[in-house]
Structures are given as C-alpha cells and as structure tokens.
C-alpha cells in the first residue's frame, strides 16, 4: 500500500490548525482576562483608597468601633446611616462598580450596599484573609443574577476584589470588597478572541493552500518517479527475460541448424543423384519390359543411344541404398526438429492454464534439453530424478527458475565439468538441487546473491535479476531457495511444500540418466 502523502498532509494540517487556533484563542482570552482582572484590581485599589480617604476615618472607623461588640444578628439589625449610602452611591455613580462591602478585621460584614448581607462572617474567605494580611486579591465570576446598587442585574461577569484599608501608619484597619461589572470588557475580549481565531484560521488556511500546492506537486513528482522506477524495474526484468530468451533462441537456432545443414546437403545430393538415375532407371525399365515380353533367356539388345551417353556420363551412378540412407537421415533430422519444437512448446507452456498440477521432473527434463542447446562445450548435465508427486504450481515460472539455475551452473564451470540436476521427495515437500563442480561462490557474494541488481558479471551480460526473480517465484510458491558453496561444489536448492493430500508419484520415471548423448 503506497503512502497517501496528500491525504496525510491534509489530515495532519487540519488537526494542527485546529489546535493552533484553539490554543491561540484560549491564550488570548486568558492573557486578556488576567490583564483585565489586574487592571480592575488596580481600579479597585484606587477606589478603595478614595473610599478610605473620604469615608474611613469619619464614617466607617466609628461605625466599626460602635458595632464591634454586636452579635451577628444585632449587627444586621443595626441601622445604617442613610447618608453613608448616599455618599457611597455618589462615589460609585458612573463607574462600573456594582457593590461595595466593608469588613472589620474580624471578618464581619459591617457594611454592604446590599443591605441583607450586613453581618455575614467572611473570616474563612480566602480573599478576605489575603486582604487582611495586606495584599489585595481579585476573582472573576459569572453571576446569573446579582443585586447591584440599581436593582438586580442578570447574566453578568463580575470582578470582585478584597482590598485592605490601611489606617494612618500603614496599619490595616479593615477590608473593602468591591464588585465591578466587566461584562462589556469580556464581551470585547470575546469578540477580539473570535477575530484572532478567525484571522489565524484565514492565515493558516492560506498557508495550507500554499503548502497543499507544494505537497501535491511533490506528491506528483514522487508518484511519477515511483512509476518511472517501476517501469525501469519492469524494463530490466523484461531485458533479463529477453537476455534469457536470446540465449535460448541462439541455442535453439544452433540446434535447428544442424539438421537443417545436413538435410539441405542431402536434398541437394538427392536431386543430383535422382537426375543421374534418370537414364539408368529408364534403361532398367526398358529391360524389364523386354524381359516381360521375352520368351527365352537370351535376348539381343541394341545399345544404340546408350553408348554415347555412357561414354560421356562417367560419374558413378548413385546407389539406391545411399539415396535411401540420405532420405532416412532427413527423416531423422525432421525428428530432431520436431523434438525441439515439442520441448520448446513444453517449456513455455503458453497453451496451458497458469496454475496446473505438474510433475516437476517433466519440467526439469525439458529445461535440461533446452539448456543443453546453449551450453558451453565441456559441460555435462546429469539428470538424477526421483519419482515425484505432481504439485499445483505455475510450470512456466518454475521452468524459468530451473533454466536460470542450470544456466548459472553451466557458466560457473571453466573448461570441463558436470552439472547435476537432482530431484528428491522430502518430508512435507519436494527438493530440487542444481549442483555444479565449478569455481564456487565466495561467502561475500553468496550473502547478496539473491538481491536484485546484484551481479558479478559487471557489464558482461546479466542484469543481476535472474536469481532475485527466481527467489520471488519460489517464495510465491511457498517455497525456499538456498545456496551452499565451496570451491568445486555449489548447490542451489529449491524446496517446495507439498499440500497435505499429495498425489502419488508418477510411475516409471526417475532412474538416473547420464546426459551426454
């Protein structure tokens, strides 16, 4: 399965873009909100200072003192000076402040612009404790409904700050809690956030578009290169096949040439001979006619025209036995030629279905016949075939494998030597050995020998694909191809598995036949 570059690129990009947009939007919102809270806290500090400056000493301090000993309920009942409300309202009018609370140091709510909260104990509140110890603290909250100065408001975002009030000398005397409405700010932030996200999405979209074009182009180039490589590979495989075919054809041509040579020569001589026989046959026929009509053993024949002929035609009259022998040789030549044709047809098996139940020995004998025709002088092939059960296989492909192995074996022999083709039945399968007594294969070559394009015949023929293809074919048959080699003995072994219910061996084959003839 090939790598879907564009598809993966798109998916990864989209996921990355979504993450980037979300993170950016979130980060913007976080930063902005924090900044808003900080700003608002600073406002609250300022506001508190204003309250403190204008109201603390004169209004709240005495109030705190006066209520110091009241219980919670009493505190809640204690009347609040209406002028205080008015003053605070005056200070807050026009700001975004919704509510103001004042706590004494014990955490009791001594004042709240929401009257019913007066008396609440905020001692345990983290914001109060922080402010009590000197540092203001703020938090952003959302309230579905909130009672502000000017009545109940709904669906508001609020920032509430606890701010310490420092008396003269810096001593903390109380704590203010101020609520401000930041809904419009948050809305603005949200709007900007969406704008940021939108912008980012547009930019990333543009980036994706540009990258997509680049990637698609790259993908196109890769696909083309892949296709080209595949084509090149096919061409090389094809040329390997053609080289093998060429060798085979050369061998076959030679094999055909021998009978053609003597058949042509014999034909010429027979025509010559028959021409020379013309007169003698006519003479003989005449004599037979005479003999038929003769009434006695002795007949007088006039040689007449025959004498000048005999005087000029001194070439020996060809013997009928010779002419017959010539014709018989020609018949033998025709047999040689048709044997070759049968073997060729058997070898290619183009007229058969691709997968067939096949007796490997038949293929091996056929391969050896074909290989012999192009084999160097001095190489003897010995068949050592044991009866084998037929197996379901692609005969044409296996023939190609065995021809390759036999040809390689023959080429490994310098001068004279022997190639043994052995077939054996083994536990669970069949084994075919192609053994030669040639120069052997060095270990470093042996390791790489089945690799595609690995060749030791640099340049001088051989694509380096023969054994690689052989291995592919054998493995496609569920088998294995192995090699062992020492100088003087190299064995390529093809092991093929046998299906559980194997046919019985074909009878009457398998005796070892030396193959010199």
């Amino acid at each position, binding site marked *: 399965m090939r790598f879907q570059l564009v598809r993966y690129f798109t998916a990864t990009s989209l996921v990355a873009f979504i993450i980037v947009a979300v993170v950016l939007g979130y980060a913007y919102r976080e930063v902005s909100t924090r900044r808003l809270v900080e700003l608002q806290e600073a406002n609250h500090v300022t506001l508190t200072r204003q309250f403190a400056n204008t109201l603390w000493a004169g209004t709240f301090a005495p109030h705190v003192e006066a209520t110091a000993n009241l219980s919670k309920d009493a505190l809640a009942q204690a009347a609040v000076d209406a002028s205080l409300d008015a003053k605070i309202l005056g200070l807050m009018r026009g700001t975004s402040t919704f509510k103001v609370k004042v706590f004494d140091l014990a955490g009791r709510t001594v004042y709240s612009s929401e009257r019913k909260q007066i008396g609440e104990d905020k001692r345990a509140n983290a914001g109060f404790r922080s402010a009590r110890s000197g540092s203001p603290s703020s938090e952003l909250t959302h309230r579905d409904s909130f009672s502000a100065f000017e009545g109940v408001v709904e669906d508001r975002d609020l920032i509430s700050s606890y701010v310490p009030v420092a008396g003269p000398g810096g001593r903390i005397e109380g704590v203010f809690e101020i609520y401000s409405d930041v809904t419009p700010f948050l809305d603005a932030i949200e709007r900007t956030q969406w704008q940021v996200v939108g912008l980012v999405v547009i930019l990333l979209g543009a980036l994706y578009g540009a990258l997509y074009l680049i990637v698609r182009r790259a993908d196109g180039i890769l696909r083309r290169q892949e296709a080209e490589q595949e084509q090149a590979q096919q061409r090389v495989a094809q040329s390997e096949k053609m080289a093998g075919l060429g060798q085979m054809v050369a061998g076959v041509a030679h094999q055909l040439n*021998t009978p053609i040579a003597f058949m042509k020569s014999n034909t010429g001589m027979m025509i010559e001979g028959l021409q020379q026989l013309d007169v003698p046959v006519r003479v003989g026929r005449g004599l037979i006619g005479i003999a038929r009509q003769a009434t006695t053993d002795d007949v007088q024949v006039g040689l007449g025209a025959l004498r000048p002929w005999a005087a000029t035609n001194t070439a020996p009259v060809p013997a009928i036995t010779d002419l017959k022998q010539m014709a018989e040789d020609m018949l033998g030549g025709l047999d040689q030629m048709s044997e070759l044709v049968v073997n060729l047809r058997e070898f290619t098996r183009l007229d058969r279905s691709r997968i067939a139940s096949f007796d490997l020995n038949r293929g091996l004998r056929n391969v050896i016949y074909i290989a012999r025709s192009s084999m160097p002088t001095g190489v003897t092939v010995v068949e050592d075939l044991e009866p084998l059960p037929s197996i379901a296989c692609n005969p044409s492909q296996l023939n190609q494998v065995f021809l390759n192995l036999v040809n390689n074996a023959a080429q490994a022999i310098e001068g004279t030597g022997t190639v043994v083709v052995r077939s054996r039945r083994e536990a669970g399968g069949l084994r075919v050995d192609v053994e030669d007594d040639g120069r052997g294969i060095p270990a470093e070559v042996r390791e790489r020998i089945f690799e595609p394009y690995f060749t030791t015949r640099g340049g001088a023929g051989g694509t380096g694909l023969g054994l690689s293809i052989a291995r592919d074919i054998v493995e496609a048959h569920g088998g294995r191809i192995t090699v062992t080699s020492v100088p003087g003995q190299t064995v390529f072994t093809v092991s093929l598995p046998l299906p559980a219910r194997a046919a019985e061996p074909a009878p009457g084959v398998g005796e070892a036949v030396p193959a010199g003839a």
Partner: protein
Amino acid sequence: MTAVRPRVLCVDDDPGIVRSLTWLLRQEFDVVTTTDPTAAVALATRERFDVVVSDQRMPVMTGVEVLRRIREAAPAAMRILLTGYSELDAIFGSINDGEVFRFVTKPWDNDELRRIVRLAASAGRAAVPDDAASRPAAVRDDRRPRILLVDDSVRTYDLVREAAGDRATVTHARNLREAIGVLESDDVAVMVTEAGIGEMDAARMINLLKRERPGLVTVVITEARDADLVIRLINHGQIYRFVPKPVRAGLLRLSIEAALARHRQLERNPALVSRHAVEPLGADSRWGVGQVPAMAPAGLAVAREPPRAGRPVSLLRRWLGW
C-alpha cells in the same frame, strides 16, 4: 594434382552431418569421418590428411581446440572450421589458435564446400611446411624485417613498436595512401592494420593486397566485435592474427612475434604462401579488377612469387581509383 586422391578428415558430433559430408566429398576425396573430437586429433596425428573439416560445437572439445591440436601435431593439414553457431570467441580462436584456412557456416552450399575443400587440398599439397622451417631459430637473418602499421592512432604505434622491440623496424602509415606508398617502396614483412581504415571494407582491402602480395602476413586490430567482418577477414583476407581492441600489449606482442616467425618461414619456403591463398571477390569484375589474370587456379601462380618491393600495388589502386 597427384594421382593419389587427397585425404579429408571430417569431425562433427552429429552423425547426420558426417554422413552428409562423406556423400558430398567421397567422389573427389578419400573421406574419413568421426563423431569424436579426441579420436579426430588422434587420427590426424597418426595418419596424414590434406584437409581437416571440423564442427565448432561439440561435447568435450571445441572445433577450435581440435584444429589447434591438429595444427601442432600435423601442421601440413589444411584446417576448415564448420559451424552453425556464430560465436565470436570461436571465430577469434579459429584465427589465432586454429589458423584456419576457411570458415564455413552451416548450412553450407554443397558446391561451395566442395570447392573450398578442393582449394584447400591443392593449396596444402602445393607446399608442405617442413619441420626445419617451423623452427624460427634455425636461420639467422641479418636484415631487420619491416612492420607496416596502418592506423591513425599514435598510441597503437607506440604499442606496436614496443611489441616489435629490436626484432623489426616499424613504419607508421596514417592512411591507405601512405600505406600503399610504403608497400611500393619497401619490403614489408608484416602489416598490422586497423580494421576500419577510412571507408574501405578491411576484408576487401586485404583481399586486394594479398592477391598481389600473397606473402604479406597480416595482423588486424579491431574494435568492431562484428562476427561477419571477422569471418570475411579470414575467408577473403586470410589474416594471420586478430587482435581485439582495447589492445592488450601481451596479445599484440605474441601476435607480432608469430607474424614475424611466419614471415621468416615464408621467406625460406615461398611456396608456403599458397596455404594462405585468397580468391577474387564477387564484385571485383564490376570495378574492372577481376580480370587480373594469374589468380586461377586458387591464386597459386602469383602466390609462388615472394613479396618484393618496387612492384605497384595495382589492384588496390585501381579499386580506389587512384
């Protein structure tokens, strides 16, 4: 021709072929056949044959090997290689090792094969190499023989000079015109030539030259691994050695040494040149060259004359229109 019929030995692993050869040749020759190359060598060593016809592709031994062994054991026999397999190595081998007289391809033409065997038999009978002549050291010649190199490459010139050493003088001709000049002005023992000199077909060039300078021993250097060219170089040019390019110094030296030795043999026994006889080529008559007499039969009349300087190289000049 003597009254005794020439003896011909035919070797081919196919019985059909040897029977055909027997029927074909027995009217004129005493034909002995075998399908076993080893037996053929033994036969040729034991008995005298005028001509040996051998197939190239046989089990155990190639035809070139058979002919090489027979050449060593019985140099008098003329050698013809018969093959249906245009294997280049076989062809090179047939020149350099087998020193064959002709190369005949299967299937052959009956009349042509009979004619070639007849030609070989008469050429072989005309002069028999004696043992003394085969030994190069027997006679010491004071004159340094001349090697003519016809090639436009300086590198080849250096290689040839190196190969010749002090055994011979090397004259370098860059083209055919220069070469003809040298051949007409000097005694040339050995000609070393590149196969492609200008546009001229090397086989025809050598054929035209050899018909007037039959004693000229030729070594051909060629890049073209063209089997057909090499076959014609043997059959029409009777070249003595063939050196494939890129030239290996060792092979070139061996070839030049062998050519010089052959030249000395021919000097001592000029009749031997008939063993390298060539015949006029078919198209010669169209060019007005074929009428040159003294070629028939088999160029033996001219062949008896030792190569001498001063005579014009007229056939080649006429062919070239110079």
